């Protein structure tokens, strides 16, 4: 079988389920809204990082990206849907690759637009406090943010294929994202630096310390996403549908 018809079919699946484009819209709305709020908050904190403040809407907003990836896969695990899909496309590896592609591309594009909008909205609020930001840093922040959101969506997609459930995936990932961000917080130099969200969010910061930089941090997130996708593909190929 050729890959193109499979890609088209999977893309049609995403478009024809209202909740999936809805999740991407929520990603945009939640991220820009939280960034706008962050833009008008206190900026005298000594740890103030104007780039991270501007893009901080991603921390809650990424839950929508994660939901998008998880739901796109978990819709296949409801009442025999997977059997129908695999009867149409019996090459499971190819089918799952197409599924990952139609999750990755929209997540990346919406992620880039979202990051740009969040930065602009937050800068309008921050005013002179963000004047120190260089163009390069801002491009890195926006591009990195889009890639980060895509990787988190793929990470969730891989987990959903492995666990065969969107509910299980989200109840694992959402507390994890919230706990890591708010409980472990700014503690650096621990193994927590290598968690998928913590490592990937380094790309959103103007200044950073520790072993990982912005791009190497994003690479760590990419490794997590690749591992989850491979585990999901392995489970899909090995188990009865």
């Amino acid at each position, binding site marked *: 079988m050729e890959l193109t018809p499979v890609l088209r*079919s999977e893309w049609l699946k995403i478009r*024809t389920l209202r909740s999936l484009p809805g999740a991407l819209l929520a990603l945009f709305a939640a991220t820009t809204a939280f960034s706008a709020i962050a833009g008008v908050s206190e900026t005298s904190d000594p740890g103030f990082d104007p780039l991270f403040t501007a893009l901080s809407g991603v921390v809650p907003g990424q839950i929508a990206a994660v939901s998008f990836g998880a739901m796109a896969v978990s819709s296949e695990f409801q009442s025999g849907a997977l059997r129908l899909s695999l009867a149409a496309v*019996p090459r499971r590896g190819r089918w799952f690759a197409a599924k990952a592609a139609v999750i990755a591309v929209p997540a990346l594009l919406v992620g880039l637009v979202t990051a740009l909008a969040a930065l602009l909205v937050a800068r309008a609020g921050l005013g002179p406090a963000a004047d120190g930001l260089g163009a390069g840093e801002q491009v890195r922040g926006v591009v990195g943010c889009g890639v980060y959101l895509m990787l988190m969506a793929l990470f969730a997609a891989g987990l959903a294929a492995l666990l065969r459930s969107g509910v299980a995936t989200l109840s694992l990932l959402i507390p994890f994202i919230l706990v890591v961000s708010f409980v472990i917080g700014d503690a650096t130099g621990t193994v927590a630096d290598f968690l998928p969200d913590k490592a990937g969010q380094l790309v959103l910061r103007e200044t950073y310390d520790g072993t990982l930089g912005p791009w190497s941090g994003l690479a760590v997130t990419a490794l997590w996403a690749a591992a989850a996708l491979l585990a999901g593909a392995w489970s899909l190929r090995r188990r009865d549908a």
Partner: protein
Amino acid sequence: MTSIDVQDLTKEYGSTRAVDGLTFRVLPGRVTGFLGPNGAGKSTTMRLVLGLDRPTAGSATLGGRAYPELREPLRHVGALLDAHAAHGSRTARDHLRVLATSNRIPDGRVDEVLEETGLASVARRRVRTYSLGMRQRLGIAAALLGDPGVVMLDEPSNGLDPEGIVWIRQLLRRLAGEGRTVLVSSHLMNETASFADHLVVLGRGRLLADTPMRDFIHARVQPSVRIRTSDPAALRSALARHGHDAVEHPDGHWTVHHARVDDIGRIASAAGVPVLELAAEEGTLEQAYFDLTSAEAEFTTQPQEA
């Protein structure tokens, strides 16, 4: 045309054998009824044929090829496994478009099968608003999408209204008449008898019968004759002379067991018995099936190795 070939097929889930050394062929040009009680292995066999489950041993092929090797498989094999497989939030038309696109089937064909299954007027409604009967029709529409040479339907009559039952019967006859290979599982005997030419019967994962339906019934159920007369005494003695045993019913008609209607007609005529009514009572598939399964039950109540 393509046949379904099942060869020494075995599937174990943990320690249970859902399918146990099955071998049979489903040939084109006729409707093969796939019978057996719940849990006999009918659905498992269909999943194995579609490459959805992996066999523990043996093989299932379509015209000599394993299902996953088929290029654009929906153009070769159409299957209905579960009427609930369509996502409730999609419209019926979008559901079929998704399937069609993956096998490069044009959207025009989607509208054709919607028309054929009587769903055209509700095609843009979300599947969650559908009744079970409508979902069955949608599942059948999906099976017909690629105009396949092999059609496999698991319990297609479930939830259909009386019109739907007649429709599916005619559809199955037509598909077989066009030379397609048609395998239809059911646990409704009278329903299966109305469309099947051939039977494959399973019990506990094993093959119990693979035979033409008429032969299956005739081998297991002796036909009887229904007769009504105005002169019971003459009838009884005429039958007794030819060694036939007749049973009288309260409403006045008689049943002659193990007899053919031609013979009884001649006997009555020769003896000058006035006949008011004479009819053959063919054995039913249900009777034949229960004869087979009760024999099987006796066989299987023997203690087995665990």
